[in-house]
């Protein structure tokens, strides 16, 4: 329970969607900013390389024109005019000893392998020492001397570093914004869907007048809420109509039946009644009573099946109720030479109608009483299993064919036209209707031999928790 609550939001499709969306945004931002970064870096480097190459070429030309002294002069000249913006020159002998330039030592181990090797130089300016990264190119002059032209990269590096930091911030912030937007979106989505689920749960548990909230934003959620509300209105109206129909059917059938019965009753009360008439009238009266009982059962089934919620649900201790009824029916069982035992845990509370639940248990018990032959046994058990109450009524009688057992849950399934005993099918239909009304599952199983009826009802406290845990729990469903 706690877990479902904690993980509820993470299980929503909205959450998954917003996570995917955040990742996608992150990827797009990374690619865009990353490629901009790389491109900028390579453009800067390309520019530097171009300058270095141009410088080298012009110095080589100088060499061709006026030999080493010309190059030395040119270098000195350039150092003077370029020194401020960080150009680096060096002319070295064949063994890399310095001949001219603004670098004191050959920075490499002989000839560098890469076309644009990089190194660092320390410059001592008044007051402070600083290390500068330098990108350079090296040429071997025809006389065996080495010419090195480089460019101080500190400015570019600072620029790139700044750009890098900006890029990283950009990526970070974009992901943050996307995530916050995504999660708040998924939160709101989850809450609205949760509202829908909550309302549906409340309506199912009997608060028929409840409707989905309409935010007035006329978005798709409002559209959904309004359609669902229309469906609910219609359902409520149908339930009302159905209820009115039941009432009038009940009234229209019961009233004439009542008149019939009253007249027959009156006949039986006649002081001058001949004995030959009493018997047939009494038997007809019994038939009327049976008809009336069947009618009552049918109406009850129809009412339960109509989905009309329980009018006044109250907490019912199924264990206690089953115990009471088992005790009540024990003498009836004993009279038929059957053993009826009960092992019911008390305090197993469900939300429902005590009379209807009593009728459910009674019908299952009477079903067993009817079919189990003398010497057999009937067991009643109630226990709590997780968040459900399990009511089990089992016997070792002849049982029921598998296909009939499976059909038992269907509304109005006419079951068990067995051995001329009438009314059992209707009894089980009523059991399944009452079970459905209580949102319970009825399963008929083989007890090898015999029949095992299991009614699994939702516990009352679980329903209370369900209402309070609403959002998360309904989300994980």
């Amino acid at each position, binding site marked *: 329970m706690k877990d479902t609550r904690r993980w509820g939001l993470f299980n929503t499709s909205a959450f998954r969607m917003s996570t995917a969306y955040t990742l996608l945004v992150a990827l797009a931002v990374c690619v865009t900013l990353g490629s901009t970064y790389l491109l900028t870096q390579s453009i800067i480097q390309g520019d530097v390389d171009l300058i270095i190459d141009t410088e080298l070429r012009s110095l080589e030309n100088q060499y061709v024109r006026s030999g080493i002294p010309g190059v030395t002069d040119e270098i000195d000249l350039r150092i003077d005019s370029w020194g401020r913006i960080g150009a680096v020159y060096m002319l070295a002998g064949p063994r890399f000893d310095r001949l001219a330039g603004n670098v004191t030592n050959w920075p490499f181990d002989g000839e560098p392998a890469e076309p644009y090797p990089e190194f660092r130089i320390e410059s001592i300016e008044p007051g402070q020492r600083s290390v500068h990264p330098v990108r350079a190119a090296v040429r071997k002059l025809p006389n065996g001397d080495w010419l090195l032209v480089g460019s101080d990269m500190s400015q570019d590096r600072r620029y790139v570093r700044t750009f890098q930091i900006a890029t990283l911030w950009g990526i970070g912030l974009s992901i943050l914004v996307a995530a916050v937007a995504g999660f708040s979106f998924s939160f709101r989505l989850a809450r609205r869907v949760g509202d829908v689920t909550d309302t549906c749960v409340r309506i199912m548990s009997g608060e028929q007048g409840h409707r989905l909230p309409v935010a007035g934003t006329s978005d798709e959620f409002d559209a959904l809420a309004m359609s669902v509300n229309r469906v609910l209105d219609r359902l409520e109206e149908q339930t009302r109509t159905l209820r009115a129909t039941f*009432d009038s059917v*009940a*009234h229209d059938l*019961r*009233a004439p*039946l*009542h*008149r*019939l*019965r*009253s*007249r027959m*009753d*009156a006949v*039986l*009360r006649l002081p001058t009644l001949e004995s030959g008439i009493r018997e047939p009238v*009494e038997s007809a*009266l019994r038939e*009327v*009573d049976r008809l*009336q*009982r069947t009618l*009552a059962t049918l*109406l*009850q089934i129809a*009412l339960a099946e109509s989905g009309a919620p329980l*009018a*006044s649900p109250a907490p019912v201790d199924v264990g206690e109720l089953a115990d*009471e009824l088992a*005790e*009540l*029916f024990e*003498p*009836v069982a004993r*009279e038929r030479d059957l053993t009826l035992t009960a092992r019911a845990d008390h305090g197993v509370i469900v939300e429902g*109608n*005590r*009379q*209807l639940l*009593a*009728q459910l248990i*009674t019908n299952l018990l*009477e079903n067993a*009483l*009817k079919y189990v032959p003398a010497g057999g046994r009937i067991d009643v058990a109630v226990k709590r299993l997780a968040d459900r109450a399990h009511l089990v009524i089992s016997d070792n009688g002849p049982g029921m064919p598998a296909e009939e057992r499976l059909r038992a849950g269907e509304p109005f399934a006419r079951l068990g036209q067995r051995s001329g005993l009438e*009314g059992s099918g209707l*009894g089980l239909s009523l059991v399944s209707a009452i079970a459905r009304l209580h949102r319970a599952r009825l399963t008929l199983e083989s007890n090898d031999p015999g029949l095992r009826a299991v009614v699994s009802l939702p516990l009352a406290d679980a329903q209370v928790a369900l209402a309070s845990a609403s959002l998360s729990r309904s989300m994980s469903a």
Partner: protein
Amino acid sequence: MHILLIEDDTEAARVLVKGLRESGYTVDHAADGRDGLSRALAGKFDLIVTDRMLPHLDGLGVIQQLRRARLATPVLVLSALGTVDDRIRGLKAGGDDYLTKPFAFAELLARIEALLRRHASAAESTVLRVADLEFDLLARTVTRGGREIELTSREQKLLEFLMRREGQVVTRTMLLEGVWDLHFDPQSNLVDVHISRLRQAIDRGAQRLLIHTVRGSGYVLKEEEEEQ
């Protein structure tokens, strides 16, 4: 005893009025709720029997108006609806008993008698006595002619119900509702089995039988030899 019957079904009302008069009651009949209410408020009735669905003012409305006028006359509601919820609504509105149509006339008579007696004798006593049968409600002991009879608490409850209605016919439905709180008809002979066990315990070997079967109605506990 004066009874007011409010029933719009004239045919049913005719039979009921006739039956009740034959049983020794004085009966007034009103054919709709409004008429019924004004008669109930004007006259002095010991009991009101009203249908649930009536023209102009329905049965529950009549009861509510009566109770608002501080009239405590017991009311028996007759209804062709008869689901559990309807019954609860009927009793909540202030009805004292509820009977679903169709019913046996004997059932109606027994209910009427029970309601009239209930309002007549409200005196509480800790020992119930019928002939030589004694039930000490405080000690929860039952004796017959001084000899203690062992009964389960369930059997005691049944016996107490019968003893409190000494001489009154008690129907099977009244027992189901009153003793075991079951407001539906079980298919089995549940009531008969329990009565026969109680009878075994109370009347076995006794000179005078106390629990009698009333043909077509139910049972009665009284000091009288069983008529053969």
